């Protein structure tokens, strides 16, 4: 029997207070996510239950009980307090998926500070703009990423501490750098956890928009209510489960469902800190007897490409529940998983801003391959007419996906950007920026983004950010960045570039520009293709018509080109 039971029954008289009651939380009381994810689980008699199995490069294996993660959270929290860090300070996590990342997440929240997780593959420019925007006071990182931090440190006066978790003691540290090794620290049995309340800030994730710099999405401790209940009802996490979320905590899935959801439910989870390979992934499921697997369409399509034969080499019979997030899951992938794993991947839809799953396929509910599913109970989800911004009532008509504000994990602001935040709410609705249609049975079907943001392998890339970085390359005169179709990643970044006088297009130049963007921004922002052109299409007022280039890549109609500048 699934946790949700009947979806239709759950819709009736739904109250978020159901989750509050299960968690023993009462309105107005202290609520601290880290306490709920560790101390509370121990107090409930599960201190010796495994919280985390970790497997890293070179076959390094570690495991942690709930008491271990409770102690580690205390130890790290106390260390941070002793440095003088305090509630509402922004503390960045910039690490690979090593245990210290997960343990530091708890430690930061325990002192009431705000966790700012950033993807460790970010280049120095991507790192800089996010740390500068948040006025981050401390960053916790690994030796291997230290060179990126050192490159930008002088430009970040607010960044007082660079905490390195694995630095060789014999290697000299530089100004502002501090060594902290959790394994060599005395465990702190008791600490006074900061009394955060429902609206106290907890996590600051950065997300890309069409224009401007990335936005810091501020979440609060009350988000736990949504994350707990959606993990329970959608992912169907149950007491004996071994759960594997393949997302990196540099992104919201990796915190909402890679830390908070499972641990607030006292669930054992496992982490594989290695690159993708079908053998490694299937072997991991087999070895740890994974029962619930939450992954992404890009990974699923990569597994499909490797073929079905390899699956027979592993015992994957432990799997009982599969789900997917990050981008629309195509029908073929759902059908493939039904054939090979005896069950479909349940597609889930949500965003950094929503903090938790909003639309989903649910255990026990009929799955329509290719559909996003239906809104979570307690969520009012509609598609709006783009012109009137009123909900569309007739089935099949495409509109803007929107939600009635007020769910527990809704973002509370964009960091230092109230204007952008307010723009997300129109006519009493939160606008997601995505388009969909709803069929006659209430299922949502994804259509596409409503803006120019590129969703590549589940990562949002801002064309503006890439174009800005391209202009810093000496040979680039102008650039326009659009998406192009991709079999595995759904879409990837493509750049159209004009060169300054004196530079000649060529393959070596293309490679150099690619590597420039990869190191400066991130691998997913790196154009997978660069097309050198004589000129970019522009309006008469000089604005680059990205729309035309996009249409060309996707084989679509170009639409109205009356404003196109003629030669």
């Amino acid at each position: 029997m699934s946790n949700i039971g009947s979806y239709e029954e759950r819709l009736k008289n739904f109250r978020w207070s159901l989750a509050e009651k299960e968690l023993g939380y009462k309105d107005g009381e202290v609520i601290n996510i880290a306490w709920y994810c560790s101390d509370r689980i121990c107090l409930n008699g599960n201190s010796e239950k495994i919280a985390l199995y970790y497997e890293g490069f070179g076959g390094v294996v570690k495991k942690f009980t709930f008491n271990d993660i409770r102690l580690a959270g205390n130890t790290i929290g106390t260390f941070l307090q002793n440095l003088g860090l305090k509630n509402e300070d922004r503390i960045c996590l910039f690490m690979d998926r090593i245990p210290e990342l997960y343990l530091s997440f708890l430690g930061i929240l325990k002192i009431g500070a705000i966790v700012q997780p950033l993807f460790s593959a970010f280049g120095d420019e991507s790192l800089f703009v996010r740390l500068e925007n948040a006025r981050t006071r401390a960053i916790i990182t690994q030796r291997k990423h230290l060179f990126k931090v050192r490159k930008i440190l002088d430009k970040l006066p607010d960044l007082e501490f660079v905490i390195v978790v694995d630095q060789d003691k014999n290697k000299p540290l530089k100004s502002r750098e501090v060594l902290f090794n959790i394994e060599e620290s005395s465990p702190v049995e008791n600490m006074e956890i900061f009394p955060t309340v429902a609206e106290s800030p907890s996590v600051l994730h950065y997300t890309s928009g069409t224009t401007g710099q990335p936005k810091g999405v501020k979440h609060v401790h009350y988000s736990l209510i949504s994350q707990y209940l959606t993990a329970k009802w959608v992912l169907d996490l149950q007491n004996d489960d071994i759960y594997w979320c393949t997302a990196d905590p540099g992104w919201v899935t990796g915190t909402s469902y890679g830390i908070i959801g499972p641990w607030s439910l006292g669930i054992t989870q496992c982490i594989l800190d290695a690159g993708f390979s079908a053998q490694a992934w299937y072997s991991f499921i087999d070895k740890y007897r994974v029962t619930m697997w939450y992954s992404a369409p890009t990974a699923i399509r990569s597994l499909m490409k490797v073929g079905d034969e390899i699956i027979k080499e592993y015992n994957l019979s432990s799997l009982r529940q599969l789900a997917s997030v990050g981008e629309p899951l195509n029908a073929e992938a759902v059908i493939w998983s039904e054939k090979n794993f005896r069950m479909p991947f349940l597609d889930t839809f949500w965003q950094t801003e929503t903090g938790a799953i909003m639309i989903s396929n649910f255990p026990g509910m009929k799955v329509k391959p290719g559909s996003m599913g239906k809104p979570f109970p307690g969520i009012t989800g509609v598609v709006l007419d783009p012109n009137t911004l009123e909900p569309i009532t007739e089935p099949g008509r495409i509109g803007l996906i929107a939600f009635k504000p007020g769910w527990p994990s809704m973002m509370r602001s964009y960091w230092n950007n109230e204007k952008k935040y307010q723009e997300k709410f129109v006519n009493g609705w939160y606008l997601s920026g995505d388009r969909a249609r709803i069929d006659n049975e209430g299922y949502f079907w994804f259509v596409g983004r409503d803006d120019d943001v590129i969703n590549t392998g589940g990562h949002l890339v801002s064309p503006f950010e890439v174009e800005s970085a391209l202009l810093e390359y000496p040979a680039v005169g102008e650039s326009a960045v659009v998406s192009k179709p991709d079999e595995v990643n759904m879409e990837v970044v493509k750049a159209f570039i004009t060169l300054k006088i004196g530079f000649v297009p060529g393959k070596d130049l293309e490679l150099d520009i690619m590597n420039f963007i990869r190191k400066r921004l991130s691998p997913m922002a790196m154009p997978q293709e660069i097309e050198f052109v004589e000129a970019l299409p522009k309006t008469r007022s000089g604005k680059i018509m990205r729309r035309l280039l996009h249409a060309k890549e996707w084989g679509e109609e170009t639409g109205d080109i009356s404003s196109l500048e003629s030669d």
Partner: protein
Amino acid sequence: MENMKLEEMKDIVLNYVIKEYLDDEEEKITYDTCLISGGYVDSFSMVSLLVFLENKFKIKIPPSKATPEAFDSVNKIVSLVSQYMK
């Protein structure tokens, strides 16, 4: 180019991977180190590695052959590249 020895090719590829993709200068990799599954080169960055190989060795590798498995070590990459140099 046709006469380039395998060892020489391996060194070219290894040095390029170290220069472009290794963050930790103290980390050591060999011809057999797993590059993709070991997390040194991600799937997005594989494209720039492919462009490098095609430029350097003046070859064209079909997209269907440029798989994570074929790019998973220097030895595998050189084996793939050498097929298209003949």
